[in-house]
Protein backbone atom coordinates (compact mmCIF):
# COMPACT_ATOMS: atom_id res chain seq x y z
CA UNK A 1 0.00 0.00 0.00
CA UNK A 2 1.12 3.52 -0.79
CA UNK A 3 2.96 4.94 2.26
CA UNK A 4 1.02 8.19 2.07
CA UNK A 5 -2.33 6.31 2.17
CA UNK A 6 -1.03 4.19 5.06
CA UNK A 7 -0.04 7.36 6.92
CA UNK A 8 -3.47 8.90 6.30
CA UNK A 9 -5.28 5.81 7.63
CA UNK A 10 -3.07 5.84 10.72
CA UNK A 11 -3.79 9.54 11.23
CA UNK A 12 -7.53 8.96 10.81
CA UNK A 13 -7.41 6.19 13.46
CA UNK A 14 -5.54 8.49 15.83
CA UNK A 15 -8.01 11.33 15.29
CA UNK A 16 -10.98 8.99 15.82
CA UNK A 17 -9.50 7.79 19.11
CA UNK A 18 -8.80 11.33 20.25
CA UNK A 19 -12.35 12.46 19.32
CA UNK A 20 -13.77 9.59 21.39
CA UNK A 21 -11.62 10.40 24.42
CA UNK A 22 -12.38 14.13 24.12
CA UNK A 23 -16.13 13.48 23.86
CA UNK A 24 -16.10 11.36 27.01
CA UNK A 25 -13.86 13.93 28.74
CA UNK A 26 -16.11 16.87 27.79
CA UNK A 27 -19.24 14.96 28.88
CA UNK A 28 -17.73 14.09 32.26
CA UNK A 29 -16.39 17.63 32.76
CA UNK A 30 -19.80 19.10 31.87
CA UNK A 31 -21.61 16.76 34.30
CA UNK A 32 -19.13 17.41 37.11
CA UNK A 33 -19.20 21.17 36.49
CA UNK A 34 -22.99 21.28 36.59
CA UNK A 35 -23.75 18.64 39.20
CA UNK A 36 -20.77 18.46 41.56
CA UNK A 37 -22.02 21.35 43.74
CA UNK A 38 -25.35 19.59 44.31
CA UNK A 39 -23.68 16.32 45.39
CA UNK A 40 -24.35 16.16 49.09
CA UNK A 41 -26.27 14.09 51.61
CA UNK A 42 -29.48 16.18 51.34
CA UNK A 43 -29.55 15.34 47.61
CA UNK A 44 -29.73 11.66 48.55
CA UNK A 45 -31.67 11.73 51.81
CA UNK A 46 -33.49 15.08 51.62
CA UNK A 47 -34.58 16.21 55.06
CA UNK A 48 -34.49 12.69 56.49
CA UNK A 49 -31.55 11.79 58.76
CA UNK A 50 -29.15 9.71 56.59
CA UNK A 51 -28.94 6.76 59.02
CA UNK A 52 -32.72 6.62 59.41
CA UNK A 53 -33.10 6.69 55.65
CA UNK A 54 -30.37 4.12 55.07
CA UNK A 55 -31.85 1.62 57.53
CA UNK A 56 -35.37 2.29 56.21
CA UNK A 57 -36.57 3.67 59.56
CA UNK A 58 -37.96 6.77 57.90
CA UNK A 59 -39.18 7.03 54.34
CA UNK A 60 -37.04 9.36 52.20
CA UNK A 61 -39.45 11.61 50.35
CA UNK A 62 -37.42 14.42 48.83
CA UNK A 63 -34.10 12.68 48.13
CA UNK A 64 -32.69 10.29 45.56
CA UNK A 65 -32.21 7.37 47.96
CA UNK A 66 -35.33 5.42 46.82
CA UNK A 67 -34.32 5.96 43.18
CA UNK A 68 -30.77 4.73 43.86
CA UNK A 69 -32.05 1.61 45.65
CA UNK A 70 -34.68 1.10 42.92
CA UNK A 71 -32.02 1.31 40.20
CA UNK A 72 -29.71 -1.15 41.94
CA UNK A 73 -32.56 -3.60 42.60
CA UNK A 74 -33.78 -3.26 39.03
CA UNK A 75 -30.34 -4.00 37.57
CA UNK A 76 -29.86 -6.95 39.91
CA UNK A 77 -33.29 -8.45 39.23
CA UNK A 78 -33.09 -7.98 35.46
CA UNK A 79 -29.65 -9.60 35.39
CA UNK A 80 -30.93 -12.48 37.52
CA UNK A 81 -33.64 -13.14 34.92
CA UNK A 82 -31.35 -12.55 31.94
CA UNK A 83 -28.17 -14.49 32.89
CA UNK A 84 -29.52 -18.05 33.13
CA UNK A 85 -31.85 -17.57 30.17
CA UNK A 86 -29.23 -15.85 28.03
CA UNK A 87 -26.40 -18.26 28.85
CA UNK A 88 -28.68 -21.28 28.27
CA UNK A 89 -29.88 -19.87 24.94
CA UNK A 90 -26.27 -19.14 23.94
CA UNK A 91 -25.27 -22.71 24.80
CA UNK A 92 -28.26 -24.03 22.84
CA UNK A 93 -27.33 -22.01 19.75
CA UNK A 94 -23.67 -22.99 19.92
CA UNK A 95 -23.94 -26.63 20.91
CA UNK A 96 -27.36 -28.12 20.33
CA UNK A 97 -29.17 -26.12 17.66
CA UNK A 98 -29.83 -27.89 14.38
CA UNK A 99 -27.80 -26.24 11.61
CA UNK A 100 -30.99 -25.79 9.55
CA UNK A 101 -32.68 -23.82 12.32
CA UNK A 102 -29.68 -21.72 13.23
CA UNK A 103 -30.08 -18.93 10.61
CA UNK A 104 -33.71 -18.49 11.70
CA UNK A 105 -32.76 -18.23 15.37
CA UNK A 106 -29.93 -15.83 14.56
CA UNK A 107 -32.29 -13.63 12.55
CA UNK A 108 -34.76 -13.52 15.44
CA UNK A 109 -31.94 -12.66 17.83
CA UNK A 110 -30.75 -9.83 15.57
CA UNK A 111 -34.31 -8.51 15.38
CA UNK A 112 -34.60 -8.64 19.19
CA UNK A 113 -31.28 -6.79 19.52
CA UNK A 114 -32.49 -4.13 17.10
CA UNK A 115 -35.90 -3.47 18.65
CA UNK A 116 -36.02 0.09 20.08
CA UNK A 117 -36.31 0.04 23.86
CA UNK A 118 -39.53 2.08 23.76
CA UNK A 119 -41.18 -0.83 21.91
CA UNK A 120 -40.00 -3.28 24.57
CA UNK A 121 -41.49 -0.88 27.15
CA UNK A 122 -44.74 -0.75 25.22
CA UNK A 123 -44.80 -4.55 25.05
CA UNK A 124 -44.24 -4.70 28.83
CA UNK A 125 -47.08 -2.23 29.32
CA UNK A 126 -49.37 -4.31 27.06
CA UNK A 127 -48.48 -7.43 29.05
CA UNK A 128 -49.37 -5.69 32.32
CA UNK A 129 -52.72 -4.51 30.87
CA UNK A 130 -53.42 -8.06 29.67
CA UNK A 131 -52.56 -9.54 33.08
CA UNK A 132 -54.66 -6.88 34.80
CA UNK A 133 -57.66 -7.80 32.66
CA UNK A 134 -57.32 -11.56 32.59
CA UNK A 135 -55.34 -12.63 35.67
CA UNK A 136 -55.70 -10.21 38.56
CA UNK A 137 -56.94 -6.68 39.05
CA UNK A 138 -54.04 -6.08 41.43
CA UNK A 139 -51.50 -6.29 38.60
CA UNK A 140 -50.38 -2.95 37.20
CA UNK A 141 -47.15 -1.84 35.57
CA UNK A 142 -44.71 -2.71 38.35
CA UNK A 143 -41.17 -3.64 39.31
CA UNK A 144 -41.57 -7.24 38.10
CA UNK A 145 -42.80 -6.20 34.64
CA UNK A 146 -39.98 -3.61 34.37
CA UNK A 147 -37.30 -6.11 35.31
CA UNK A 148 -38.63 -8.72 32.87
CA UNK A 149 -38.86 -6.14 30.08
CA UNK A 150 -35.28 -5.00 30.79
CA UNK A 151 -34.15 -8.64 30.81
CA UNK A 152 -35.66 -9.02 27.30
CA UNK A 153 -33.78 -5.90 26.25
CA UNK A 154 -30.38 -7.22 27.39
CA UNK A 155 -30.85 -10.90 26.48
CA UNK A 156 -29.27 -10.56 23.01
CA UNK A 157 -25.98 -9.29 24.52
CA UNK A 158 -25.68 -12.30 26.82
CA UNK A 159 -26.88 -14.82 24.24
CA UNK A 160 -24.53 -13.53 21.54
CA UNK A 161 -21.40 -13.34 23.72
CA UNK A 162 -22.04 -16.82 25.14
CA UNK A 163 -22.70 -18.30 21.71
CA UNK A 164 -19.73 -16.64 20.02
CA UNK A 165 -17.30 -17.52 22.81
CA UNK A 166 -18.32 -21.19 22.54
CA UNK A 167 -18.33 -21.29 18.75
CA UNK A 168 -14.90 -19.68 18.47
CA UNK A 169 -13.12 -22.18 20.73
CA UNK A 170 -10.55 -24.31 18.87
CA UNK A 171 -11.77 -27.80 17.96
CA UNK A 172 -9.15 -29.56 20.11
CA UNK A 173 -10.37 -27.68 23.21
CA UNK A 174 -14.03 -28.27 22.42
CA UNK A 175 -13.40 -31.98 22.16
CA UNK A 176 -10.92 -32.41 25.04
CA UNK A 177 -13.60 -33.50 27.49
CA UNK A 178 -15.49 -35.54 24.91
CA UNK A 179 -12.33 -37.48 24.03
CA UNK A 180 -11.90 -38.29 27.73
CA UNK A 181 -15.39 -39.77 27.93
CA UNK A 182 -17.35 -36.74 29.10
CA UNK A 183 -20.96 -36.47 28.06
CA UNK A 184 -21.95 -33.41 26.06
CA UNK A 185 -23.43 -31.73 29.15
CA UNK A 186 -20.36 -32.55 31.29
CA UNK A 187 -18.16 -31.10 28.55
CA UNK A 188 -20.20 -27.88 28.50
CA UNK A 189 -20.44 -27.45 32.28
CA UNK A 190 -16.95 -28.60 33.30
CA UNK A 191 -14.84 -27.35 30.41
CA UNK A 192 -16.48 -25.00 27.93
CA UNK A 193 -18.20 -22.67 30.43
CA UNK A 194 -15.14 -22.29 32.73
CA UNK A 195 -12.99 -21.67 29.63
CA UNK A 196 -15.38 -18.95 28.49
CA UNK A 197 -16.31 -17.44 31.83
CA UNK A 198 -14.41 -14.21 31.31
CA UNK A 199 -15.97 -13.71 27.87
CA UNK A 200 -19.46 -14.44 29.19
CA UNK A 201 -18.86 -11.85 31.94
CA UNK A 202 -18.04 -9.33 29.18
CA UNK A 203 -21.58 -9.81 27.85
CA UNK A 204 -22.97 -9.40 31.35
CA UNK A 205 -21.06 -6.12 31.79
CA UNK A 206 -22.68 -4.79 28.62
CA UNK A 207 -26.06 -5.93 29.90
CA UNK A 208 -25.55 -4.17 33.25
CA UNK A 209 -24.73 -0.92 31.47
CA UNK A 210 -27.85 -1.21 29.32
CA UNK A 211 -30.07 -2.01 32.34
CA UNK A 212 -28.72 0.96 34.27
CA UNK A 213 -29.22 3.56 31.58
CA UNK A 214 -32.52 2.67 29.97
CA UNK A 215 -35.38 5.03 30.76
CA UNK A 216 -37.75 4.21 27.89
CA UNK A 217 -38.59 0.70 29.11
CA UNK A 218 -39.14 1.59 32.75
CA UNK A 219 -41.21 4.73 32.17
CA UNK A 220 -43.89 2.57 30.53
CA UNK A 221 -43.68 -0.39 32.88
CA UNK A 222 -43.78 0.87 36.45
CA UNK A 223 -41.26 3.60 37.30
CA UNK A 224 -42.88 6.66 38.84
CA UNK A 225 -41.62 9.80 40.52
CA UNK A 226 -42.65 9.34 44.16
CA UNK A 227 -43.16 5.65 44.87
CA UNK A 228 -40.42 5.10 47.44
CA UNK A 229 -38.48 1.84 47.77
CA UNK A 230 -40.45 -1.08 46.27
CA UNK A 231 -41.72 -3.45 48.98
CA UNK A 232 -42.67 -6.26 46.58
CA UNK A 233 -42.21 -7.34 42.98
CA UNK A 234 -45.65 -5.96 42.21
CA UNK A 235 -44.93 -2.47 43.59
CA UNK A 236 -44.20 0.64 41.65
CA UNK A 237 -40.75 2.07 42.20
CA UNK A 238 -38.37 4.92 41.57
CA UNK A 239 -35.26 4.73 39.37
CA UNK A 240 -32.52 7.20 38.52
CA UNK A 241 -32.87 7.15 34.70
CA UNK A 242 -36.58 7.93 35.02
CA UNK A 243 -35.85 10.67 37.57
CA UNK A 244 -33.26 12.23 35.24
CA UNK A 245 -35.70 12.12 32.30
CA UNK A 246 -38.55 13.52 34.41
CA UNK A 247 -36.55 16.33 36.02
CA UNK A 248 -34.85 17.41 32.80
CA UNK A 249 -38.14 17.65 30.94
CA UNK A 250 -40.20 19.16 33.72
CA UNK A 251 -38.01 21.12 36.15
CA UNK A 252 -39.48 24.08 38.04
CA UNK A 253 -36.30 25.76 39.19
CA UNK A 254 -32.59 25.91 38.52
CA UNK A 255 -32.05 24.06 41.80
CA UNK A 256 -34.14 21.10 40.57
CA UNK A 257 -32.17 20.97 37.34
CA UNK A 258 -28.93 20.88 39.34
CA UNK A 259 -30.36 17.96 41.30
CA UNK A 260 -30.90 16.24 37.94
CA UNK A 261 -27.20 16.69 37.13
CA UNK A 262 -26.36 15.33 40.58
CA UNK A 263 -28.53 12.27 39.79
CA UNK A 264 -26.60 11.82 36.52
CA UNK A 265 -23.30 11.72 38.41
CA UNK A 266 -24.71 9.22 40.91
CA UNK A 267 -25.99 6.99 38.06
CA UNK A 268 -22.58 7.21 36.45
CA UNK A 269 -20.90 6.25 39.74
CA UNK A 270 -23.25 3.27 40.13
CA UNK A 271 -22.32 2.12 36.61
CA UNK A 272 -18.60 2.60 37.31
CA UNK A 273 -18.95 0.62 40.55
CA UNK A 274 -20.80 -2.24 38.83
CA UNK A 275 -18.38 -2.27 35.89
CA UNK A 276 -15.42 -2.35 38.30
CA UNK A 277 -17.00 -5.23 40.20
CA UNK A 278 -17.63 -7.15 36.97
CA UNK A 279 -14.08 -6.49 35.76
CA UNK A 280 -12.67 -7.83 39.03
CA UNK A 281 -14.78 -10.99 38.58
CA UNK A 282 -13.68 -11.21 34.95
CA UNK A 283 -10.01 -10.88 35.83
CA UNK A 284 -10.33 -13.47 38.58
CA UNK A 285 -12.05 -15.86 36.17
CA UNK A 286 -9.42 -15.21 33.50
CA UNK A 287 -6.60 -15.71 36.00
CA UNK A 288 -8.11 -18.87 37.41
CA UNK A 289 -8.59 -20.39 34.00
CA UNK A 290 -5.43 -18.76 32.61
CA UNK A 291 -7.15 -17.10 29.68
CA UNK A 292 -5.75 -13.83 28.43
CA UNK A 293 -8.23 -10.95 28.22
Amino acid sequence: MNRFVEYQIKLFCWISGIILICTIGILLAFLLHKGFSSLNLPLIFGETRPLDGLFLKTRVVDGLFPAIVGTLLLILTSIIWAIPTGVAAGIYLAEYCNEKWKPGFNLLLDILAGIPSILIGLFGFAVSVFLHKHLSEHIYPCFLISSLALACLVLPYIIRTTEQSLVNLPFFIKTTGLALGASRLQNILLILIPYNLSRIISGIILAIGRCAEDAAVIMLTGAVAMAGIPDSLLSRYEALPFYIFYISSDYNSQEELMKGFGACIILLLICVFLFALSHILKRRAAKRFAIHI
Partner: protein
Amino acid sequence: MKKIKIRINNLNCFYKKKPVLKDLKGEMEEKAITTIIGPSGVGKTTLLMAINRLYESIPDCRVEGKVEIKLNTKYIDIHKLPVTDLRKKVGMVFQVPNPLPMSIFKNIAFPLKLSGIKDKEYIKEKVEQALKDAFLWDEVNDRLNDSALELSGGQQQRLCIARAMIMQPEVLLLDEPTSSLDMEAALKITELLKNLKGKCTLLVVSHYTSLTKEISDNVLTLKDGCLKITENSKIVDESSVAN
Protein backbone atom coordinates in the same frame (compact mmCIF):
# COMPACT_ATOMS: atom_id res chain seq x y z
CA MET B 1 -0.81 -65.54 14.96
CA LYS B 2 -1.52 -61.86 15.56
CA LYS B 3 -4.41 -60.95 17.79
CA ILE B 4 -6.59 -58.30 16.22
CA LYS B 5 -8.00 -55.48 18.37
CA ILE B 6 -9.75 -53.29 15.80
CA ARG B 7 -11.41 -54.39 12.56
CA ILE B 8 -12.46 -51.84 9.97
CA ASN B 9 -14.83 -52.83 7.18
CA ASN B 10 -16.04 -50.72 4.27
CA LEU B 11 -15.55 -47.48 6.20
CA ASN B 12 -16.67 -44.40 4.32
CA CYS B 13 -16.39 -40.90 5.70
CA PHE B 14 -17.82 -37.71 4.22
CA TYR B 15 -17.32 -34.05 5.06
CA LYS B 16 -20.48 -32.40 3.77
CA LYS B 17 -20.84 -34.50 0.63
CA LYS B 18 -17.13 -34.86 -0.11
CA PRO B 19 -15.81 -38.37 0.54
CA VAL B 20 -12.64 -38.47 2.66
CA LEU B 21 -12.34 -42.20 3.30
CA LYS B 22 -13.66 -44.67 0.73
CA ASP B 23 -14.44 -48.33 1.47
CA LEU B 24 -11.58 -48.54 3.92
CA LYS B 25 -10.60 -51.97 5.24
CA GLY B 26 -7.96 -52.76 7.82
CA GLU B 27 -7.01 -54.44 11.06
CA MET B 28 -4.98 -53.24 14.03
CA GLU B 29 -2.99 -55.63 16.19
CA GLU B 30 -3.75 -55.92 19.89
CA LYS B 31 -1.26 -54.46 22.39
CA ALA B 32 1.03 -53.34 19.61
CA ILE B 33 1.90 -49.99 18.08
CA THR B 34 0.35 -49.44 14.68
CA THR B 35 1.44 -46.32 12.88
CA ILE B 36 -0.62 -44.77 10.14
CA ILE B 37 1.28 -42.76 7.57
CA GLY B 38 0.25 -41.06 4.39
CA PRO B 39 0.11 -37.74 2.55
CA SER B 40 -1.36 -34.66 4.23
CA GLY B 41 -5.11 -34.31 3.98
CA VAL B 42 -5.67 -37.98 3.14
CA GLY B 43 -7.87 -38.54 6.19
CA LYS B 44 -5.54 -39.98 8.85
CA THR B 45 -6.99 -37.84 11.65
CA THR B 46 -10.50 -38.53 10.35
CA LEU B 47 -9.78 -42.26 10.61
CA LEU B 48 -8.75 -41.83 14.26
CA MET B 49 -11.88 -39.78 14.94
CA ALA B 50 -14.01 -42.46 13.27
CA ILE B 51 -12.62 -45.04 15.70
CA ASN B 52 -13.64 -43.13 18.86
CA ARG B 53 -16.66 -41.47 17.18
CA LEU B 54 -15.28 -37.98 17.76
CA TYR B 55 -16.36 -37.20 14.20
CA GLU B 56 -19.87 -36.86 15.66
CA SER B 57 -18.77 -33.49 17.08
CA ILE B 58 -17.99 -32.16 13.60
CA PRO B 59 -20.98 -30.62 11.84
CA ASP B 60 -21.65 -32.15 8.41
CA CYS B 61 -19.33 -35.12 9.01
CA ARG B 62 -20.87 -38.52 8.31
CA VAL B 63 -19.46 -42.02 8.64
CA GLU B 64 -20.76 -45.24 7.10
CA GLY B 65 -19.42 -48.76 7.46
CA LYS B 66 -18.28 -50.88 10.33
CA VAL B 67 -15.60 -50.42 12.97
CA GLU B 68 -15.39 -53.24 15.49
CA ILE B 69 -13.36 -53.34 18.66
CA LYS B 70 -12.52 -56.46 20.64
CA LEU B 71 -13.74 -56.12 24.21
CA ASN B 72 -13.05 -59.16 26.39
CA THR B 73 -13.25 -61.76 23.62
CA LYS B 74 -16.03 -60.36 21.48
CA TYR B 75 -15.90 -57.92 18.60
CA ILE B 76 -18.41 -55.15 19.16
CA ASP B 77 -19.53 -52.52 16.65
CA ILE B 78 -18.47 -49.17 18.12
CA HIS B 79 -21.80 -47.65 17.15
CA LYS B 80 -23.58 -50.07 19.45
CA LEU B 81 -21.62 -48.90 22.50
CA PRO B 82 -22.65 -45.78 24.48
CA VAL B 83 -20.34 -43.08 23.16
CA THR B 84 -19.00 -42.07 26.61
CA ASP B 85 -18.15 -45.71 27.41
CA LEU B 86 -16.44 -46.10 24.04
CA ARG B 87 -14.27 -43.02 24.60
CA LYS B 88 -13.22 -44.26 28.03
CA LYS B 89 -12.04 -47.46 26.34
CA VAL B 90 -10.55 -45.65 23.32
CA GLY B 91 -8.57 -42.62 24.54
CA MET B 92 -7.18 -39.94 22.27
CA VAL B 93 -4.22 -37.58 22.40
CA PHE B 94 -4.21 -34.63 20.01
CA GLN B 95 -1.49 -33.04 17.92
CA VAL B 96 -1.48 -29.87 20.04
CA PRO B 97 -1.21 -30.50 23.81
CA ASN B 98 -4.54 -29.58 25.35
CA PRO B 99 -4.26 -29.48 29.14
CA LEU B 100 -7.40 -28.22 30.81
CA PRO B 101 -7.22 -24.81 32.50
CA MET B 102 -6.78 -26.31 35.95
CA SER B 103 -3.99 -27.73 38.15
CA ILE B 104 -1.74 -30.61 37.09
CA PHE B 105 -3.38 -32.89 39.67
CA LYS B 106 -6.93 -31.99 38.61
CA ASN B 107 -6.03 -32.48 34.95
CA ILE B 108 -4.89 -36.04 35.52
CA ALA B 109 -7.77 -36.77 37.88
CA PHE B 110 -10.36 -35.29 35.51
CA PRO B 111 -11.39 -38.58 33.78
CA LEU B 112 -11.83 -40.18 37.22
CA LYS B 113 -14.07 -37.27 38.22
CA LEU B 114 -16.10 -37.79 35.05
CA SER B 115 -16.60 -41.41 36.04
CA GLY B 116 -17.94 -40.33 39.43
CA ILE B 117 -14.97 -41.66 41.45
CA LYS B 118 -14.73 -39.75 44.74
CA ASP B 119 -12.30 -41.78 46.88
CA LYS B 120 -9.51 -39.24 47.45
CA GLU B 121 -6.84 -41.77 48.38
CA TYR B 122 -7.61 -43.87 45.30
CA ILE B 123 -7.51 -40.78 43.06
CA LYS B 124 -4.20 -39.71 44.60
CA GLU B 125 -2.65 -43.14 43.99
CA LYS B 126 -3.92 -43.28 40.40
CA VAL B 127 -2.66 -39.78 39.62
CA GLU B 128 0.78 -40.59 41.01
CA GLN B 129 0.96 -43.82 39.03
CA ALA B 130 -0.19 -42.13 35.82
CA LEU B 131 2.44 -39.41 36.22
CA LYS B 132 5.14 -42.01 36.89
CA ASP B 133 4.09 -44.00 33.82
CA ALA B 134 4.36 -40.81 31.77
CA PHE B 135 7.88 -40.07 33.14
CA LEU B 136 6.50 -36.83 34.57
CA TRP B 137 6.35 -37.53 38.30
CA ASP B 138 9.92 -36.43 39.08
CA GLU B 139 9.42 -33.15 37.26
CA VAL B 140 6.10 -32.12 38.81
CA ASN B 141 5.62 -33.96 42.12
CA ASP B 142 6.41 -30.80 44.12
CA ARG B 143 3.98 -28.60 42.17
CA LEU B 144 0.92 -30.70 41.52
CA ASN B 145 -1.35 -27.78 42.40
CA ASP B 146 0.24 -25.43 39.87
CA SER B 147 -1.62 -24.73 36.64
CA ALA B 148 -0.97 -27.33 33.95
CA LEU B 149 -0.75 -24.48 31.47
CA GLU B 150 2.57 -23.44 33.05
CA LEU B 151 4.28 -26.66 31.92
CA SER B 152 6.45 -26.78 28.80
CA GLY B 153 4.98 -28.13 25.55
CA GLY B 154 6.61 -31.55 25.96
CA GLN B 155 5.51 -31.82 29.59
CA GLN B 156 1.97 -30.82 28.59
CA GLN B 157 1.88 -33.56 25.95
CA ARG B 158 3.11 -36.17 28.44
CA LEU B 159 0.46 -34.91 30.87
CA CYS B 160 -2.18 -35.40 28.16
CA ILE B 161 -0.95 -38.97 27.60
CA ALA B 162 -1.01 -39.61 31.36
CA ARG B 163 -4.54 -38.18 31.53
CA ALA B 164 -5.69 -40.38 28.66
CA MET B 165 -4.05 -43.45 30.26
CA ILE B 166 -5.45 -43.01 33.78
CA MET B 167 -8.66 -44.83 32.86
CA GLN B 168 -6.55 -47.67 31.47
CA PRO B 169 -8.07 -47.51 27.98
CA GLU B 170 -7.83 -50.55 25.76
CA VAL B 171 -6.86 -48.42 22.77
CA LEU B 172 -4.98 -45.12 22.69
CA LEU B 173 -5.18 -42.98 19.55
CA LEU B 174 -2.36 -40.47 19.07
CA ASP B 175 -2.61 -37.85 16.37
CA GLU B 176 0.93 -36.73 15.50
CA PRO B 177 1.90 -36.53 19.17
CA THR B 178 5.38 -35.11 18.54
CA SER B 179 4.79 -32.73 15.68
CA SER B 180 4.42 -29.60 17.82
CA LEU B 181 7.41 -30.43 20.05
CA ASP B 182 11.15 -29.85 19.93
CA MET B 183 13.60 -32.73 19.43
CA GLU B 184 14.26 -33.35 23.15
CA ALA B 185 10.57 -33.38 24.07
CA ALA B 186 9.79 -35.60 21.07
CA LEU B 187 12.42 -38.13 22.24
CA LYS B 188 10.77 -38.33 25.66
CA ILE B 189 7.39 -38.96 24.04
CA THR B 190 8.96 -41.66 21.87
CA GLU B 191 10.36 -43.36 24.98
CA LEU B 192 6.99 -43.06 26.67
CA LEU B 193 5.18 -44.65 23.74
CA LYS B 194 7.67 -47.52 23.65
CA ASN B 195 7.01 -48.00 27.36
CA LEU B 196 3.26 -48.20 26.73
CA LYS B 197 3.72 -51.00 24.22
CA GLY B 198 2.17 -54.15 25.64
CA LYS B 199 -0.05 -52.22 28.03
CA CYS B 200 -2.61 -51.15 25.46
CA THR B 201 -3.18 -50.98 21.72
CA LEU B 202 -1.61 -47.83 20.30
CA LEU B 203 -2.65 -46.26 17.02
CA VAL B 204 -0.33 -43.45 16.04
CA VAL B 205 -0.62 -41.03 13.15
CA SER B 206 2.82 -39.71 12.30
CA HIS B 207 4.65 -37.82 9.63
CA TYR B 208 8.06 -38.58 11.07
CA THR B 209 9.98 -41.50 9.62
CA SER B 210 12.29 -41.73 12.62
CA LEU B 211 9.39 -42.01 15.07
CA THR B 212 7.54 -44.44 12.82
CA LYS B 213 10.57 -46.73 12.40
CA GLU B 214 11.50 -46.63 16.08
CA ILE B 215 8.19 -47.43 17.68
CA SER B 216 6.04 -49.25 15.15
CA ASP B 217 5.15 -52.90 15.17
CA ASN B 218 2.99 -52.38 12.12
CA VAL B 219 2.84 -49.54 9.62
CA LEU B 220 -0.22 -48.82 7.55
CA THR B 221 -0.17 -46.38 4.67
CA LEU B 222 -3.33 -44.46 3.94
CA LYS B 223 -3.39 -43.32 0.36
CA ASP B 224 -6.21 -42.73 -2.13
CA GLY B 225 -8.68 -43.82 0.53
CA CYS B 226 -7.02 -47.26 0.96
CA LEU B 227 -5.15 -48.66 3.94
CA LYS B 228 -2.12 -50.77 2.94
CA ILE B 229 0.41 -52.59 5.08
CA THR B 230 3.89 -51.14 4.66
CA GLU B 231 6.98 -52.94 5.88
CA ASN B 232 9.12 -50.94 8.27
CA SER B 233 12.16 -51.33 6.04
CA LYS B 234 10.31 -49.78 3.13
CA ILE B 235 9.77 -46.47 4.87
CA VAL B 236 12.46 -44.47 3.17
CA ASP B 237 12.62 -40.86 4.29
CA GLU B 238 10.57 -38.01 5.68
CA SER B 239 9.50 -36.76 2.26
CA SER B 240 8.18 -40.11 1.09
CA VAL B 241 6.07 -40.36 4.20
CA ALA B 242 4.85 -36.80 4.10
CA ASN B 243 4.18 -36.72 0.39
